[in-house]
């Protein structure tokens, strides 16, 4: 079996930059997505119909269209739209397009994660909070959301891992994250087996590390369940 390790060793600088950018994009996308998701989920569980309608539409669109389509829509479609609207050349930096597309996408999935967490808290909690004199807002802030957040940690961890892998799609707008490094190396060496094996292993190391960290977080947060 002629497995050329030199393909991987020669490609190390590109691979290193790729891993670095992939991690940065994922952290930013999920970070901003968490903020968006929290906001949208609160709209979704409110009793105000326009809020519900808006949040449902947002979630449906972002979850109902492929991420690849969203990336092209933002990066290639956005400049075309705004250039016409504003009458002067508008350009999106690919980093900006990637962060926008990934964050919006992440936000939709995280909104549903939080909604699941919030709705899983039994009504008795809200009733008890209200009967103590708290407003709806205070009840959410001090009683419901803290518990909902704890329950959301495993699915949030999954979302982080999913986004880590989905970030590979931004290679189509020429960002040099890990998948792009693979395309470049394979394109130069014509050795896709060595190249993409290395890429897969690198993604695997990242996702497994995150999984371990999420398990650790779960254990730490679970401690408070048993505190006496």
């Amino acid at each position, binding site marked *: 079996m002629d497995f050329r390790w030199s393909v991987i060793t020669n490609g190390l600088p590109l691979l290193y930059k790729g891993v670095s950018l992939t991690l940065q994009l994922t*952290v930013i996308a999920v970070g901003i997505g968490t903020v968006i998701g929290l906001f949208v989920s609160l709209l979704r569980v409110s009793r105000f119909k326009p809020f519900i309608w808006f949040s449902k539409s947002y979630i449906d669109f972002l979850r109902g269209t492929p991420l690849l389509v969203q990336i092209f829509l933002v990066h290639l479609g956005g400049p075309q739209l705004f250039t016409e609207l504003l009458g002067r050349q508008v350009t*999106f930096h690919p*980093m900006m397009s990637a962060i926008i597309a990934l964050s919006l996408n992440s936000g939709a999935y995280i909104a549903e994660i939080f909604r699941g967490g919030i709705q899983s808290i039994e009504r008795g909690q809200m009733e008890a909070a209200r009967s103590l004199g708290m407003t709806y807002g205070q009840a959410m802030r001090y009683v419901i959301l803290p518990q909902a957040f704890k329950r959301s940690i495993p699915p949030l961890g999954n979302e982080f891992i999913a986004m880590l892998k989905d970030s590979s799609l931004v290679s189509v707008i020429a960002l040099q994250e890990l998948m792009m490094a693979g395309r470049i190396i394979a394109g130069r060496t014509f050795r896709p087996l060595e190249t993409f094996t290395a890429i897969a292993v690198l993604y695997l190391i990242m996702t497994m590390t995150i999984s371990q960290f999420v398990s650790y977080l779960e254990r730490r947060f679970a401690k408070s369940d048993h505190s006496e």
Partner: protein
Amino acid sequence: MRKAVRLLALISLVLAMILALTACGSKKTQIRRFETTPVALIELMNGGVDAVVADSPVVLEFIKENPNAKLEAFGDAEFEKEFYGIAMRQKDTDIHKLINDGLRKIKANGVYDKIFNTYFGDGTPYQVAESKNTLGKTLNVAQDMAYAPFEFINDAGNPEGFDVDLIRAIAAEMGFAVNLINTNWDGIIPSLLAGNSDLIISAMTITEERAKSVTFSEPYFEATQYIAVKQGSKIKKLADLEGKKIGVQNATTGDFAVTDYFNLD
């Protein structure tokens, strides 16, 4: 836990700002590699890159077909002459003979000139003869169909182009049949080596590096790299691209030329 949420939001906002600032402030020459040349040219139209480096006939065809894109293109003495060849597996010596004989024959009997004329001459359309497949052999042909005027999908949804006509003419002349397969450029040589295709005719430049993995036919077309920019751009030659953002298609000779000239990764 709420502190954790706030911390995470803060970290990601800070990282986003750092990334945005470093990306905006960068004065280094940057190369952006796209999957296809049309996407790189759209990026040029949107202002995402300052120039695109690609094969001259393709750039000129794009400018001709899209006048409202307001682009212009020029060559540079730094760019070498390039020759396109048909790529085949090294061990398929019978196919090498078939293709080279066919190429020679259609150059001798004028069919090559008629096809050349359709795309690069006065435009008189020439209908390539249908192959009678006397050899009873069908070869799979890989082409990246996003490369007018060499290979592209026309409005009717069918493959059309110089390379398409050329391989069909060779097939008709030598008595075999062809099955055209639209293949991503990134995977086109691996597809040949893996057996998913038997020939590549996709405006592929003959290079030493590629010739290590495949066998090329005799050259069938001459081209060079052109630089496409927006009309009115101050970029007039390759050296002017220093510090600018350059768009290319990944793993093309344009990509390699720019990467080598500016010593990029």
